[in-house]
């Protein structure tokens, strides 16, 4: 073990030294990520790295529904496709324990990259394993959280304003609580606007990957969900299936039943975007990452769109998205990959990253006095990132996630059992998994 530690230390040192003197003219490194709007911004940004370091960049972008499968297979098979990977926050535990990612502590220390320069929630979620420990396996690359968009132009119509005020005795405005959100959604459901039937809200209901879990946790977190006892890790009974959690899940189901478009049984990011862009829904749940694109959309962008942070209920909280950038242990180009991270961590690069549509979480960007005015959704993004909560980041996260997908989808979409039964079964599933993992 000692020999292994020394060898690992020697390897890390050699990598760090290599990164410091990246004489890599003409070399090409591959960055792997999901295929979505921010990835295009990163391609644009990375041209500066190529110009500066002389390292060419290749990109492997995989559509979201296949992203986890494709990339985790690549890592598990010790593939050399990716030199750099922008992986989901939940992968950090497995990737650190299975040594898929290079540990970056020595590199950060040598290059003067300080984790204190990034938003604390993102460092905790995207970089550390074990959680909260000063062991870093990624640099926060893309902050993200679940937020909401709404049709500002519909909300501002005087006749709708008057009708809403008469019915609910308050202004038709972005909701502050989930109860208000449901009222607004009910108000718009099946309403005729410009000769077209519209619906209340597009929410996540997808079964296959992570959709319905990400959507339902937006409600569960707002009701104050704690997965386990803070004093006794992995003790989930009475926490995951608490009274408030049951109430939150029942509420999410009622929102799905009352106020979503027809056929909305398996919808995630793209279906939400389609529903909103085609003028089908008054509100849409989606990741902040899509908001720059929506803001510029010809049909629904500009003055027609508004944004709001995930509504509170008992507490203010948002589901965490986003990713950190890591160096893949099996890459033959680790020196160049580390040089990319060093370049990417610079405040100027981070500022440009934000200006191109990437969600930089460097304090030089988000603590700039003008940041909240730099985009119509910037203030909400900052607020959301102040109260994010993430799913389990354990090495067994995929199993934990699929269990939740099944239990929640069975209850919300397939009308199977009650919310209490669904969460009780989920606790049993998770207890079994953690027992297999040797954690309880």
């Amino acid at each position: 073990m000692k020999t292994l530690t020394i060898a690992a230390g020697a390897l890390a040192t050699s990598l760090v030294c290599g990164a410091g003197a990246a004489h890599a003219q003409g070399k090409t490194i591959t960055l792997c990520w999901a295929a979505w709007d921010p990835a295009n911004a990163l391609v644009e940004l990375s041209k500066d790295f190529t110009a500066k370091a002389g390292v060419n960049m290749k990109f492997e972008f995989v559509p979201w529904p296949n992203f986890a499968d494709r990339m985790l297979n690549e890592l598990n098979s010790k593939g050399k496709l990716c030199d750099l990977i922008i992986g989901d926050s939940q992968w950090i535990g497995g990737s650190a324990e299975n040594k898929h990612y290079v540990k970056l502590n020595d590199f950060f220390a040598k290059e003067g990259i300080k984790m204190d320069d990034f938003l604390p929630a993102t460092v905790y979620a995207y970089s550390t394993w074990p959680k909260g420990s000063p062991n870093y396996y990624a640099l926060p690359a893309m902050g993200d959280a679940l937020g909401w968009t709404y049709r500002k132009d519909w909300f501002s119509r005087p006749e709708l304003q008057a009708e809403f005020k008469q019915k609910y005795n308050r202004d038709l405005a972005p909701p502050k609580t989930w109860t208000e959100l449901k009222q607004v959604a009910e108000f718009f459901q099946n309403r005729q606007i410009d000769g077209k039937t519209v619906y209340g809200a597009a929410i996540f209901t997808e079964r296959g990957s992570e959709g319905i879990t990400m959507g339902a946790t937006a409600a569960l977190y707002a009701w104050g969900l704690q997965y386990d006892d803070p004093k006794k890790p992995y003790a989930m009974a009475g926490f995951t299936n608490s009274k408030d959690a049951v109430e939150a899940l029942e509420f999410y189901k009622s929102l799905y039943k009352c106020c979503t478009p027809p056929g909305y049984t398996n919808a995630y990011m793209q279906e939400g975007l389609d529903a909103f862009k085609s003028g089908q829904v008054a509100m849409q749940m989606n990741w902040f990452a899509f908001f720059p694109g929506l803001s510029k959309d010809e049909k629904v962008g500009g003055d027609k769109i508004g944004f709001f942070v995930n509504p509170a209920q008992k507490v203010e909280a948002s589901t965490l998205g986003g990713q950190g950038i890591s160096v893949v242990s099996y890459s033959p180009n680790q020196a160049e990959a580390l040089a990319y991270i060093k370049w990417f961590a610079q405040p100027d690069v981070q500022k440009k990253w934000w200006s191109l549509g990437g969600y930089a979480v460097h304090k030089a960007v988000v603590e700039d006095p003008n940041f909240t005015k730099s985009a119509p959704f910037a203030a909400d993004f900052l607020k959301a990132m102040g109260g994010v909560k993430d799913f389990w980041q354990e090495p067994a996260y995929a199993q934990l996630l699929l269990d939740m997908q099944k239990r929640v989808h069975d209850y919300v979409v397939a009308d199977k059992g009650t919310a209490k039964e669904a969460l009780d079964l989920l606790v049993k599933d998770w207890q079994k998994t953690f027992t297999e993992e040797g954690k309880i």
Partner: protein
Amino acid sequence: MRFAEKVATVTPAAPARRVRSLSDRTIAWLFIAPTIVLLLAINVFPLIWTVRLSFTNYRANRMNVPLRDVGLQHYNDILTSPDVWAAMQVTARFVIATILIQTVLGFALAWLVDKKFRGHGLWTTVILLPMMLSPAVVGNFWTFLYQPQIGLFNYVVSFFTGIPPSSFQMLGDLTLSPWAIVLVDTWMWTPYVMLICLAGLRSIPDYIYEAAEVDRASKWRQFWTITLPMAAPFIMLAVLFRAIENFKMFDMVNLLTGGGPGSTTEVASITLKREAFEKWRTGYSSAFAIILFVTVFGLANIYVKALNRLKQR
């Protein structure tokens, strides 16, 4: 000297002598050896390896975790899991429904095509088209056809029934979604059943019908006493092929519903895929695969014995 004899005298004899020194049995083994090696490598070894893994805690995404024997724990977990039994029930319902419908429709189509009406060749080709398509293509375009707001299927139903097209969802409704899959599978694979039944119908000699005509047997009686019994082995063969295929049905269900809504259409192979390649419980999924294999193999054997008995009659 004839030309053939001349050629024989100039042809070198050495190689022929070498081959002649091998026994027929050795030569036969030499010919089949590559196939046997290939079969062992591709079929038998993975099967044995899967059996071995099914008794361990092995996970393909955690190579660094020490391998531990868990005995029959996975088999016990699977056979006592309500979720697995639910998936098996969904599979059984799907297999029974598709086979019943496809057999009746397939045989009816074969009987019609066998009548040799004008243009029957063209119609046979048209009927066979769906089974020539890739399941991935079929799954994708039926997903669009079933779309409640823009899909053609809902509009066709609406045209005939007057129900608003977006008032029902074939893939999202708990009652309709299993039938949506049955419909697509029937559309795609009924031609296959038809083809096998057609072979059965064409194998019945004409003189039997002629003898029946002489005995003044009605068409109805001819059908029940000649056509159906003589085509029965072919029908049973079609049922066997379709049952095996549909027991392990994956692609179509995955593309159409992904097992949803909830777990309404989660057939056994979808559960197996989730356990093996999403949860990475390789040992557990190996045990599940073995159970499915034994089930199919056992049922198919019983069926084949019944089929042989029927042929002997």
